[in-house]
């Protein structure tokens, strides 16, 4: 394994691990606050129990998220010092703001977790709200910095160095809105579905459990609107890519040649050498319609750049298909839930809906992983799109396979421990059987 590949793999593992916890840090506070708010309005102790139990899980996940985020902030330099030398002054703004948002989140989470009974109910609820708000903001700021790597702005390159730096223009880059919207919705949809799925699992055996019913409802209340809006946000992103990052869209859709009436390619395996996608279903003019809302529109293909500047087409295509497929599934299940709710039917009474939600549990998180693979792999071979190549950004330090293996091992162990801890918190200690059945 070359040092460059090791560095990229280490970054990939670090991101893939951290994003799960970051997403939970954005989504879970909303659920906790919703439960606590219901408790303050109804006085129903089940809601209080729910808020406390979710807070416990959030504490574990947030701690791992905070330290794995620290790892990433250092890795930007440890692995990509030349990227930071170039980009630091331009995208430091969103990172600085993220620092403060994250600070606020950590402070009020501490108050929320340890403050039960120490501060007034209203102050406690407010602390939870601030955690939810600052969690969302810190996600938005970090994704803004990532968006800049896709849509670099706020500088001109002279002799390989950035000049005329404008950090505000860097922050307001053209990809920021699409990307932050997509990621924020994804965080709510994925967390809400994961929680709803866990409680749906219990509802299959104990459909009358008030605890699980309330938890299931709050989970879907957060997840369903986000999951239904997500395809619209995805449409914005695809149209953005068609105009500003055509190579990424071409790789995602395995479109080798620039053409009008470009088809939408479902599934299949792209063959770089033969420049075709085998075993795929093609929907005529589908891609032109999606990218430009016009079946005759010309869509740029991979042939617009030399093959040496292509990303890994099969992986990008696969990631894109996975993301869209999983996201569509969640949107459909959400529509089903909304339809039942509008007709005042009890969703818990539908075993197939419960099953569908259980299947949806991991889907949101998997869609997020696939989406980040699309974003990051699709940008290659560039770290800063069109400006700085990944190979130019990497550290001169040799032997990078060792830190890569170390971090992989560490995160695998941590992942197992966290999963097992949450399992033992929720499954071997179910409140539904005794107290609230």
């Amino acid at each position, binding site marked *: 394994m070359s040092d460059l590949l090791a560095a990229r793999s280490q970054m990939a593992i670090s991101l893939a691990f951290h994003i799960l916890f970051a997403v939970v840090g954005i989504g879970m506070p909303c659920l906790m606050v919703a439960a606590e708010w219901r408790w303050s309005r109804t006085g129903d102790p089940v809601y209080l129990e729910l808020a406390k139990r979710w807070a*416990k899980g959030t*504490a*574990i996940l*947030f*701690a*791992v998220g*905070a*330290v794995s*985020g*620290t*790892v990433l*902030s*250092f*890795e*930007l*330099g*440890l692995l990509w*010092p*030349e990227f*930071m*030398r170039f*980009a*630091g*002054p*331009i995208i*430091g*703004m969103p*990172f*600085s703001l993220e*620092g*403060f948002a*994250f*600070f*606020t989140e*950590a*402070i009020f*989470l*501490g*108050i929320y*977790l*340890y*403050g039960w009974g*120490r501060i007034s109910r209203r102050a406690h609820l407010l602390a939870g709200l601030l955690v939810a708000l600052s969690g969302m903001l810190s996600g938005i700021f970090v994704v803004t910095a990532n968006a800049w790597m896709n849509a670099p702005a706020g500088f001109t390159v002279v002799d390989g160095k950035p000049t005329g*730096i*404008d*950090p505000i223009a860097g922050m307001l880059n053209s990809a920021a809105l699409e990307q932050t919207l997509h990621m924020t919705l994804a965080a709510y949809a994925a967390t809400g579905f994961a929680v709803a799925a866990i409680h749906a699992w219990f509802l299959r055996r104990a459909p009358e459990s008030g605890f699980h019913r309330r938890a299931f409802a709050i989970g879907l209340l957060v997840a369903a609107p986000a999951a239904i809006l997500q395809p619209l946000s995805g449409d914005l992103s695809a149209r953005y890519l068609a105009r500003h990052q055509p190579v990424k869209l071409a790789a995602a859709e395995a479109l080798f040649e620039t053409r009008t009436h470009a088809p939408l390619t479902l599934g299949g395996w792209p063959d770089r050498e033969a420049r075709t996608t085998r075993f795929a279903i093609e929907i005529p003019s589908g891609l032109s319609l999606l990218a430009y809302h016009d079946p005759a529109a010309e869509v740029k293909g991979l042939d617009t750049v030399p093959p040496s500047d292509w990303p890994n087409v099969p992986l990008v295509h696969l990631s894109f298909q996975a993301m869209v497929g999983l996201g569509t599934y969640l949107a459909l299940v959400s529509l089903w839930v909304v339809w039942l709710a509008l007709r005042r039917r009890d969703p818990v009474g539908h075993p197939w809906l419960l099953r569908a939600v259980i299947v949806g549990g991991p889907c949101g998180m998997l869609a997020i992983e696939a989406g980040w693979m699309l974003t990051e792999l699709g940008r290659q071979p560039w770290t800063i799109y069109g400006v700085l190549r990944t190979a130019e950004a990497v*550290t*001169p*330090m*040799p032997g990078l396979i060792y*830190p890569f293996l*170390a*971090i992989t091992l*560490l995160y695998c162990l*941590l992942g197992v*421990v966290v999963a097992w*801890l949450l399992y*033992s*918190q929720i499954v071997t*200690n179910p409140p539904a059987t005794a107290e609230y059945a």
Partner: protein
Amino acid sequence: MPEITLATILAGTVVVALNAYVVLAGADFGGGVWDLLATGPRSGKQRDLVAHAIGPVWEANHVWLILAIVLLFTCFPAGFAELAITLHIPLFLMLVGIVLRGSAFSFRSYDREHDVRQEYWGRIFAVASVVTPVLLGVAVGTVAAGRVGVPRSGDFATDFLRPWLTPFAWSIGLYTLLLFAFLAAVYLTLETDDSALQEDFRARALVSGVLLFVAALVTLGLSGSAPLIRTGLLAVPGAVPLHLTTGIAAVTALVSLWKRRYRLARAAAIVQVSAILWGWALAQYPYLLPPHLSIGDAAAPAVTLRLTLGALVVGAGVLIPSLVYLFRIFKR
């Protein structure tokens, strides 16, 4: 005194963030040291007190490090790049320590009931709390010794091992560990009403405080490898009053511990540790990475510095009241 430029002010804010990290998170690491060294009939109670003291605040305290890093790479990108290249190995190991410390602490707090597993998490938490500060100190010591920012030779050992594998760097590492342990012990005297437990931590604070003097002498003895710092510590105008402050604060801390005036001891310890940190920063002036890269040469364009300063002012407006509220609820 240093010339007041935009770059110097921003470099100062990095030191402020580091200062807050050392005074607050440093004590959280120090708590882990006393968890590891918990002895006697009250060892269980000692460990519980440490956990109780750091539980609500450690995550917020940890963010000061992230803030320092972000300020460094935004305002001094060249310095950050050189640090990250030369200190790749110790910084990576420090990160592993940070991950293990934080996760193990949280696992221990939320794993159910006291059992073998909890002890296991506790041990990981404690060992990681010892290792991490040493590596942080090693990184600082390597910078102070002028070993970061040297043009690379192409030889692995020369570029990536020898700079930080020096007696001086490791003496700073041990010094940092002692400093954190001392702070934690002083703070812990104020975290309990149990007078026996208070006495335990008073004794620990006194011992580590005295050891700190010894370690300072050893470090000074080894500082031949950091000539710039050695002269800087004495020659820079303003340095002498700062050292005087350190000395007075250190003596005040020990005397008030002896007299069981814990609030005064805590205030003096904070002044002492802060003065040590600023003494180092001042001795380095005007360099970010002595003697290779000055603050001015490492600085980002003025527009970035101005905007970051603006963000800091606005951010502080949110941050400071929030922090005051946090500490008011959980600390006395």
